[in-house]
């Protein structure tokens, strides 16, 4: 039976995450009868995605500084059906832990050869692949001496509203995970660990780059939270 949506996704009201205080709704979420939302029109023609949009190391004249990595995996629904043609968008800090964004005031250098954004469409088997550099950790003001663990933001956009997901991928063995309120907002330990990629020998290219494997599982096309409750 489907894992309960409520136990997998974090609640919005998480006191340890300071930014949630004025933004998390106070009223309980309502349950929609029937399926969650509609199917939308097919997203995009493949030609709107550039052939190098998946490679964040080749968007400028020079190469970005940092540890070159490949991140690859499959996007599936909870019934193990691959999501073909889903739009995957990623964004991240550079190797020094700085985003190429005007509002990022972290006193770490920008990298003129790194914008930190990539995108691709999944293939027929739901597969995706990005080439990038490993992002740095960075401080933030959530609590005294708070640091975000290294992470890559992932957005999954398929035609099914129920499947819409924005999340973050983390790296194995990162000691900063234990103090991060965003990572730890996921109540279930096993669910939290699914946000951590695995180092992969197969994806590691000899004399070139390290590889990380990370699969993403989204709800079924017609998922409804009611199903979960009824089956428990």
């Amino acid at each position, binding site marked *: 039976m489907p894992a309960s*949506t409520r136990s997998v996704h*974090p609640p919005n009201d998480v006191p340890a995450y300071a930014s949630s205080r004025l933004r998390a709704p106070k009223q309980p979420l309502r349950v*929609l009868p029937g399926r969650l939302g509609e199917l939308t029109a097919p997203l995009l023609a493949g030609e709107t995605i550039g052939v190098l949009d998946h490679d964040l190391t080749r968007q400028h004249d020079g190469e970005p500084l940092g540890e070159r990595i490949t991140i690859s995996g499959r996007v599936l629904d909870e019934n193990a059906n691959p999501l073909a043609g889903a739009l995957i968008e990623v964004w991240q800090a550079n190797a020094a832990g700085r985003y190429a964004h005007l509002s990022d005031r972290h006193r770490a250098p920008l990298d003129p050869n790194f914008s930190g954004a990539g995108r691709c469409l999944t293939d027929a088997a739901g597969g995706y692949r990005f080439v990038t550099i490993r992002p740095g950790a960075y401080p933030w003001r959530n609590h005294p001496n708070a640091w975000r663990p290294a992470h890559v933001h992932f957005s999954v956009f398929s035609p099914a509203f129920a499947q819409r*997901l924005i999340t973050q991928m983390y790296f194995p063995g990162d000691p900063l995970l234990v103090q991060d309120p965003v990572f730890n907002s*996921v109540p279930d330990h096993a669910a939290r660990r699914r946000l951590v990629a695995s180092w992969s020998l197969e994806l590691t290219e000899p004399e070139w780059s390290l590889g990380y494997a990370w699969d993403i599982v989204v709800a079924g096309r017609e998922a409804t939270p009611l199903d979960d409750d009824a089956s428990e």
Partner: protein
Amino acid sequence: MTLPLTPSQTVGPFFRIGLATTIGAHVAGEGSPGAVRISGQVLDGAGEPVPDALVETWQAEGAGRCGTDDQGHFAIVTTKPARNGAPDAPHLDVSVFARGLLTRLVTRIYFPDEDEANDADPVLQSLSSAERSTLVAVRDEGGLRFDIHLQGARETVFFDR
């Protein structure tokens, strides 16, 4: 076989780096037949504008996406969706993402010129009139206005994701 889901995480403050261009705010062309401009403001529990929210609309005709500006404003140009025989009144499905939100907020935008269909809509019928008013856009000079109150006396009704 059932696979366990990947949990949601916040979109964070810097999503414009990655979500800037692929999907835009025009589901329909400005001024095209049936086009309607839906604009609004995203406000937090102190009534302050949320300058780093992302609003997405979904309907059979296409998806729209707009990040809020310094004053929390967003605008999406689309058409009123066809009903396709559904019991629900015409509406847009909406996702709201922001720094401070660990998982998306789901809501609906209904249309103010659909009184009869809105009265018969099973979702709107399940709400009090005050709650219902948070989901129905209002007319303004540029088209329709739909403000999103994350908290407070006028908190928008949100649905389980």
